[in-house]
C-alpha cells in the first residue's frame, strides 16, 4: 500500500495523543491547574493535529462532516464519531482539572474509554480489510492499542507503566511482522483464484491493461519499502522500543525523558511507514505484482 505521509502522521500522532488522554483520564498523573493545562495542550495538539493531517488525503475535505453518518457499518465513520466524543469529553474533564482544580473521576474514565476506543476504531479500519491480508489479523488492533498505551504512558511520565508496556508493544510488533509475512500466502488469494483460470494451468500476467501507471497501482502496489524491510524493522524496534526503555532505566531527568519520547515517536513513525509500505493488496495480483 502507498505510505501516504498524511495517514502515517495521523495514525502516529493521534495514537500517541489519545494514549496520553487515556492515562490523563485515569488520573495518571493526577495533575491540576497549570501542569494539567500543559499536559492537555500536548495531548490535544497531537490528537487534533493528527486528525487534521488525515483530512489532507481526502479528495473532497469540504464534505468531511458527512463521515459522521454511517457508524452502523463503517469503521471510518465510527472512528470519526469516537474521536469527537473523546475530545469533547476530555475537554470537559480537562477544563474542570485546569480551572476548578477538580477531578471528576467518572467523566475521566469515560473519556479514557473513548480515547482508547478511538485508537481501536482506527486500527479496525485496517484490520477489516480482507484485501490486505497483512492487516487482516487480530494482532493489528493489539499493535495499535499497545503502541498507543506505551507511548501515552511514556508521555505521561508513568515510567513504571512504560517499562512494562514498551516491551509488550515491541513483542506484538515483532509477532505482527512474523505473521504478516505469511499472511498473503495463507489468505488463499492467488492469480489463479483472481482470474478463475487456475484449472487450465499456471497463470502469468502477460500484458498490463495500459502502458502507464494508474490510481490502483500508485495506491496499492508499492514495493520500494520491502527491499529494506529488515533494516527498517531494526531501526523501528531500536528507536521505538529499545532506546526509550534504556533511557527510562537511567536516573530520571527531563532531558532524557524528552529524548525517550522523541526516539519512540521516530520509531513508531518508521514502523507505521512499514505497516503501509510492506502491506500487499490482492489487486496487485492482477498486475502480476504483490
Amino acid at each position, binding site marked *: *500500500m502507498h505510505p501516504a505521509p498524511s495517514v502515517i502522521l495521523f495514525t502516529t500522532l493521534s495514537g500517541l495523543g489519545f494514549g496520553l488522554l487515556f492515562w490523563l483520564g485515569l488520573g495518571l498523573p493526577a495533575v491540576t491547574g497549570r501542569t494539567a493545562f500543559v499536559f492537555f495542550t500536548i495531548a490535544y495538539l497531537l490528537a487534533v493535529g493528527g486528525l487534521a493531517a488525515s483530512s489532507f*488525503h*481526502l*479528495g*473532497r*475535505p469540504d*464534505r468531511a462532516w*458527512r*463521515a*459522521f*453518518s*454511517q457508524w*452502523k*457499518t*463503517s*469503521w*471510518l*465513520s465510527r472512528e*470519526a464519531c469516537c474521536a469527537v466524543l473523546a475530545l469533547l469529553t476530555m475537554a470537559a474533564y480537562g477544563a474542570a482539572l485546569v480551572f476548578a482544580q477538580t477531578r471528576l473521576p467518572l467523566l475521566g474514565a469515560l473519556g479514557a474509554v473513548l480515547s482508547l476506543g478511538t485508537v481501536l476504531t482506527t486500527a479496525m*479500519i485496517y484490520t*477489516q*480489510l*480482507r*484485501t490486505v491480508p497483512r492487516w487482516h489479523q487480530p494482532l493489528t488492533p493489539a499493535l495499535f492499542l499497545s503502541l498507543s498505551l506505551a507511548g501515552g504512558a511514556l508521555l505521561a511520565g508513568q515510567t513504571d507503566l512504560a517499562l512494562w508496556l514498551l516491551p509488550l508493544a515491541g513483542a506484538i510488533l515483532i509477532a505482527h511482522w512474523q505473521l504478516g509475512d505469511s499472511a498473503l500466502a495463507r*489468505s*488463499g*488469494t492467488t*492469480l489463479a*483464484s*483472481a*482470474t*478463475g*483460470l487456475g*484449472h*487450465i*494451468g499456471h*497463470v*502469468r*500476467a*502477460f*500484458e*498490463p*491493461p495500459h502502458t*502507464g*501507471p*494508474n*490510481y*490502483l497501482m500508485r*495506491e*496499492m502496489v508499492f514495493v*520500494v519499502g520491502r*527491499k*529494506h524491510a529488515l*533494516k*527498517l524493522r531494526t531501526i523501528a524496534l531500536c528507536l521505538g522500543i529499545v532506546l526509550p526503555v534504556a533511557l527510562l532505566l537511567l536516573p530520571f531527568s527531563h532531558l532524557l525523558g524528552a529524548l525517550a519520547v522523541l526516539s519512540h515517536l521516530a520509531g513508531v513513525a518508521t514502523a507505521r511507514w512499514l505497516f503501509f509500505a510492506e502491506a500487499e*493488496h*490482492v*489487486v496487485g495480483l*492482477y*498486475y502480476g505484482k504483490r
Partner: protein
Amino acid sequence: MTQLPDRTDRKLGLVIDLDTCVGCHACVISCKGWNTENESAPLSDQDAYGTAPSGTFLNRVHSYEIQPDTGPAQLVHFPKSCLHCEDAPCVTVCPTGASYKRVEDGIVLVNEDHCIGCGLCAWSCPYGARELDLAAGVMKKCTLCVDRIYNTHLDEEDRVPACVRTCPAGARHFGDLGDPDSDVSRLVAERGGAELMPEQGTRPVNRYLPPRPRDQWQADPAPAALAPVADTPTGFPGWLDKALEKL
C-alpha cells in the same frame, strides 16, 4: 445508507466470455466515452499528451498467459470492471453513505455529491474496480450504465451497458443473474461461469466464462522469462533506497 440490502429484486450484471474476447479494448474506450460525456463527473486524464499520461477508467483489459502442464501456452484477454457484489465490502466501509447497493436491481453506485474521496472503498475492493478521479476528487466506478439501461429516449437495442453494445466479438452479455431462466444465467450454467476470488467472500454477481479447450498440438514449452533489467526508483524513494543501501 451503507447497510447492504438483505436481498435485491434482480441481480443485474455482466457475463464475460473469455473464449471470445479478442482483447481489442473497444469496451474500455466506449465505457470511457459514455461515462465522460454523460451525467456523472467526467473520467479525467492527467498529462494526457505528455510523457506520463494517466487517467481514470471503469473498465480495463488485462492479458494473461496460461501454461498448461502439457502443450502450448494460451493467451487470455481479461476485461475487468465492477462485479456488483452481493456482499460488497466497498459499500459497508463508506463513512458517508455515498456508496450504496440498489434494492431494485443490485447495482452498486456512488453518490458523487456525498463522496469525500477518502479512498477506503477502493482499498476494500479486491478487484480494483474503483478508481479515485484526481480532477473531481470523488470515487468513480462502473454504474452498469444505469443511465442507458432504463433510458427510454434510446432505441431498445441501445438499452444495455456501453461496453456490451460496442463489443465487436459478442464477448460481453448483460442480464439478470438472479433469474435462473435468463439468457445470462443459462450461459453461466452451460459454460461453467466462474466467480473471481470466491475466497474473498464478496459474492460477485458478474461471471467469467472460461476458454473452451484448445486443439492439442505438440510443441516445445515456452522459454523462461528473463529477469527485469532495471527497476531503480527515482526521487525520494530513490534517495531512501540509496541511503538505506549504505547502512
